[in-house]
């Protein structure tokens, strides 16, 4: 048990420590190795009742020394040049000195730089997610591989390639100006949301929800909000994750089948998460700097405010989707808006609109499922069946297939 507490301390300090080491060495691999070494030293030196006042500062010093040792060893191997690096610390760590210089501003910039490195646009989305989980959250390659249903070896390669790609891009670490900083923060918010979504609606595989990923994303979002309380989009992100996650108990049946919003038992929604999400959103909206995540959070929040599915304020939700289409247009948003329009005006006009947005959604299972249910509502059963069958073939998860299967059964 005592050891478990210590590893929780390590997990909690990880983003800050790794961020500082990444700045010191300018090399993710070296920073990770140094953190690993510092953690081992901490596990030997710390006791349950004698954790340093500032574990992060302790680990940064230990990690920095470990990193310098490693660099020195390497250079000794390469050339037997005389030793001219500073002597490393001997293992006792007066963290107080360093704490003074490590104020919040330095932490913020370090962590932002680390997050931005992991979420850099030269990386593919799956690489961003993998790196953020590995480097910032500290999940093992095996854990990440399991979450994404790939072999550990495949995940290892994905991470290695991502790091190579970052090195090739020769990231510069100069201070970003205000615009660049805003861009970075939104990239970080998006990457954290990708992690969340990967847990919330897995693209493939048997399980629709992978709670660990959702919880890691929430932890990262909380950290981001704490570091940048003045960024409304980050609060919007956290609000969105909390409200979506509040439904996790209601989203699957005991057999692991997906339950639609319409069918969910609202008494199973976690009211504490909803309350926190709503107040975060309210605080975010006060800044009058709306962003896509704040709007998505507002949509999710509107659902939570309705006592039943029938009592949902569809007009408000339609307005919010319209706003979302303006600031971040996407085929999926357009589809969602059509679904809401069907609630407001019935299936016939919605079906007509569906044709207008069909082109980019041809391979998207949910598009055909939506089309199927509009057709069924209009009594065009044969066409509905064909749409559902197409949705079945395109579905990525077993839960999704099960959902479509149930729809097909209803038709007959």
């Amino acid at each position: 048990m005592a050891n478990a507490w210590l590893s929780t301390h390590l997990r909690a300090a990880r983003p800050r420590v790794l961020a500082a080491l990444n700045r010191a060495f300018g090399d993710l691999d070296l920073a990770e190795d140094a953190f690993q070494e510092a953690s081992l030293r901490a596990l030997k030196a710390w006791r349950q009742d004698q954790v340093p006042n500032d574990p992060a500062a302790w680990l940064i010093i230990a990690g920095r020394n470990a990193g310098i040792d490693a660099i020195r060893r390497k250079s000794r191997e390469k050339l037997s040049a005389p030793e001219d690096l500073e002597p490393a610390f001997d293992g006792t760590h007066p963290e107080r000195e360093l704490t003074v210089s490590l104020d919040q501003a330095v932490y913020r910039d370090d962590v932002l730089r680390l997050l931005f490195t992991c979420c850099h646009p030269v990386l593919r989305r799956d690489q961003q997610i993998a790196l953020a989980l590995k480097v910032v959250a500290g999940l093992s390659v095996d854990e990440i591989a399991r979450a994404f249903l790939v072999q550990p070896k495949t995940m290892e390669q994905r991470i290695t390639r991502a790091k190579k790609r970052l090195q090739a891009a020769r990231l510069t670490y100069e201070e970003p100006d205000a615009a660049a900083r805003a861009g970075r923060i939104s990239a970080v918010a998006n990457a954290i949301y990708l992690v969340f979504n990967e847990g919330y609606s897995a693209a493939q595989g048997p399980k629709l929800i992978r709670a660990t990923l959702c919880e890691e994303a929430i932890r990262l979002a909380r950290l981001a909000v704490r570091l940048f309380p003045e960024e409304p989009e980050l609060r919007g992100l956290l609000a969105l994750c909390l409200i979506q996650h509040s439904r996790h108990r209601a989203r699957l049946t005991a057999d692991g089948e997906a339950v639609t919003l319409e069918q969910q038992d609202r008494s199973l929604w976690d009211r504490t998460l909803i309350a926190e999400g709503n107040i975060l959103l309210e605080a975010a909206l006060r800044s009058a700097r709306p962003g896509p995540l704040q709007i998505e959070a507002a949509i999710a929040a509107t659902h939570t405010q309705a006592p039943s599915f029938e009592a949902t304020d569809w007009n408000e939700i339609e307005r919010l989707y319209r706003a979302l289409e303006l600031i971040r247009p996407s085929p999926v948003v357009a589809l969602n808006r059509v679904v809401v329009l069907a609630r407001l005006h019935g299936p016939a006009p919605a079906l007509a609109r569906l044709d207008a947005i069909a082109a980019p959604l041809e391979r998207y299972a949910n598009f055909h499922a939506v089309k199927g249910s509009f057709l069924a509502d209009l009594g065009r059963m044969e066409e509905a069946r064909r749409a559902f069958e197409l949705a079945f073939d395109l579905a990525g998860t077993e839960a999704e297939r099960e959902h479509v299967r149930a729809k097909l059964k209803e038709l007959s």
Partner: protein
Amino acid sequence: MLFSVLIYANEDFIDALSSEEREALLKKHRTFHEHTKANRNFAAASKLMSTGTSVTISRESGDYVVTDGPFTETKEQFLGFYLIDCATLEEAIEAVKLLPLDHGRIEVRPVDFFEGSDFRNGERLVINAS
């Protein structure tokens, strides 16, 4: 005499807790509840939402200024508080020893003024976030 029991801890650490660890912390809080209720010391308990939910209001040159978040330059955050009614500081300290003290710290401070409903039964009003 009324004492405020103010709880501070690092939210990064709180967020990193596993559900078993969280449960171990809550167990100590429950012990504290039971103990202070049995002794009729318990007045109120209040657990705060994350610091991300907060705004700070101040006044600068006559204008109200509402800023997001708490003051962030602290390593530990204010997470919640208890009110307990004890005869002596010693008694309050003894009760607080039941709380989880391995992480973060707890400040005990006597209350100078209090107005509120009769709390001695402790059980009457429970408000959850929802």
